[in-house]
């Protein structure tokens, strides 16, 4: 029972960064932009998430507002990087895959350089600590799983229905879907394709930056140059895994994290199983298997994904 309880509690806690980054990537891809630079944006967000509170109070405790400022700075840096990516792939129409890899390297390199210049070696902070919700956290089983986390986690979970609402129930969400599906048709209806794509990249970048800052401030509570360690790419894969739908992406992030936590728990509680190498790759195998057997994915994706739009050209 403890094993299940702990696994579920940790799944809720550790899935947030992936979920937010994937949700941001979903906004990019819904608008037709394939942003492989998510990893770099997350790293910059993670760096700023540390820089603000560290500059204020070093490794010691700082007011909640300062930590919040760190999270928002990460989001702001992410939005700026999203816009930079927009200049490259929307204005200059560079190939999105290559530009994304470039952005990833740029983000990781810049964050590492700034970190070394302004802070130095591996640095930890107090960050935002868990705050069990009174009364609710005392409910047997459910209380521990759902109500013993830090307050930012609850806000992040609220972003799932909000993202669904924005995409499917607002005029702007409809424009995003239109420019990602048939930009020429959207253009003919007076939608400024480039502007909507820029807006999506800014929002997606902000969410990726926020996710990076979340890792620094709420989970790892430290920064190292390779703190993201491939999570940005997993976030991109989860968008396909979740078929570009916010709720399915959320479930995908939960499932992936569940597999991650479970493999650790298997190592701990089933020591007779000696192939830890197999267990550590289990979550990734899961993603590959789901993608391989999900033949509908390609049909559900935005039709204009990865294709630059040039209104002066007929095709």
């Amino acid at each position, binding site marked *: 029972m403890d094993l299940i309880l702990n696994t579920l509690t940790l799944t809720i806690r550790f899935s947030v960064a992936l979920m937010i980054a994937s949700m941001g990537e979903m906004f990019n891809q819904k608008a037709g932009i394939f942003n492989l630079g998510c990893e770099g944006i997350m790293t910059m967000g993670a760096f700023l998430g540390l820089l603000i509170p560290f500059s204020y109070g070093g490794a010691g405790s700082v007011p909640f507002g300062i930590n919040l400022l760190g999270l928002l700075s990460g989001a702001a840096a992410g939005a700026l990087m999203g816009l930079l990516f927009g200049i490259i792939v929307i204005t200059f129409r560079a190939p999105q895959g290559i530009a994304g890899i470039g952005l990833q390297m740029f983000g990781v390199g810049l964050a590492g350089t700034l970190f070394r210049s302004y802070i130095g070696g*591996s640095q930890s902070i107090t960050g935002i600590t868990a705050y069990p919700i009174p009364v609710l956290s005392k409910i047997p089983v459910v209380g521990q799983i759902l109500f013993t986390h830090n307050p930012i986690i609850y806000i992040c979970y609220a972003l799932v229905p909000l993202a669904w609402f924005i995409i499917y129930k607002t005029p702007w969400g409809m424009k995003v879907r239109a420019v990602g599906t048939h930009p020429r048709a959207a253009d003919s209806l007076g939608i400024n394709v480039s502007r909507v794509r820029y807006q999506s990249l800014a929002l997606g970048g902000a969410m990726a930056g926020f996710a990076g800052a979340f890792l620094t401030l709420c989970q*790892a509570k430290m920064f190292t140059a390779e703190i993201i360690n491939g999570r940005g790419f997993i976030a991109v894969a989860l968008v396909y895994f979740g078929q570009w739908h916010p709720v399915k992406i959320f479930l995908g992030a939960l499932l992936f994290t569940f597999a991650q936590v479970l493999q650790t728990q298997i190592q701990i509680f089933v020591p007779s199983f000696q192939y830890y190498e197999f267990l550590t790759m289990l979550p990734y195998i899961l993603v590959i298997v789901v993608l391989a057997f999900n033949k509908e994915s390609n049909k559900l994706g935005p039709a204009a994904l990865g294709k630059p739009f040039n209104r002066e050209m007929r095709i």
Partner: protein
Amino acid sequence: MKKAIAFLMIVALALTVAFAQGAQEEKKGDIKVALIVANTIDDKGWCQAMHDGIVEAMAEMPGKIADYKAVENTQPADTMTAIRTYVNLGYNIIIVHGSQYRAQVEDAAKEFPDVMFAFGTTSDVIAPNVFSYMPQSEETGYLSGIVAGLTTKKNKVALVGPIDGGDSARYNRGFVLGVQAVNPSAKIQVTHIGSFGDTVKSGEAAMAFIQGGADVLTGSSQQALGALRAVADFPNEEIWWVGQDIAQIDIEEGYKCIAASAYNYKAVVVGLVEKFEEGVLGGECLPMNFNNGGFVWAWNEAKCSDKITPEIKKAVEDKIAEFTATPDTLSNWSAVDYSTL
């Protein structure tokens, strides 16, 4: 136009030759050390230990090492580029610090037979111009195990490992032996996160252990910093850490670190310089243990004095005395089987 270009090329070539010769004259007789690492030299773990050792060796032998440079965050695929660059710049002792670089070191040793390479960790002798080094970390792991086994109140201790190989494998198995020696009934839990540098995953693993009731944790390699950070998330609870690097005592989370061991790479670097001066470029394995000064141990008296009981202190110091007097006393370390824990 062609004549002008040809003239400029000749001038450039002449200047290159002139400056190249000048540089060679300048470095004649000097020892220049280059370090290649997978992480950063301030990672409070594996890479920093070697960097600190080189810096300390330079201080101990003033003037002997004319220059020292470190190349950080180096992937195995980039290692040959770094090695060639430093060889061309006249560096004559190149320390390639990580077992993942073995193939590159073997190639480089053949290509540059006049350069001394140092490579760890392995106990194999690789080439006539390569010194391998192997920390016998089962000794430090054993001491950490003594501390953990005698400190635990819940009788459950845990270990966050990176990959089951190299000196981490030795430290981790030594830890198991140490716990079993002083507290045979203690439950020892082990996990490997599959990475040397993923501090986030390391923190997640430590959190899983703590949620599961472990109250003394340890970890090896630089990823362990994430686990220590997770332990520090429980400031008011009796959850403690035993470190594999003394640098972990001095950081903010150090108040959770009862004691720590460290590699004394200064002794290795001093040994390399002395061998280089004798004209011996390699062909040996340099073991590191308490007997030859390769390890140091430190208590966190300033922040954890109440956890350092006379019983723990005596048990550890008696064992250090034994290790110092006789090397290889834990030759059975590799027999530790995690599946039986």
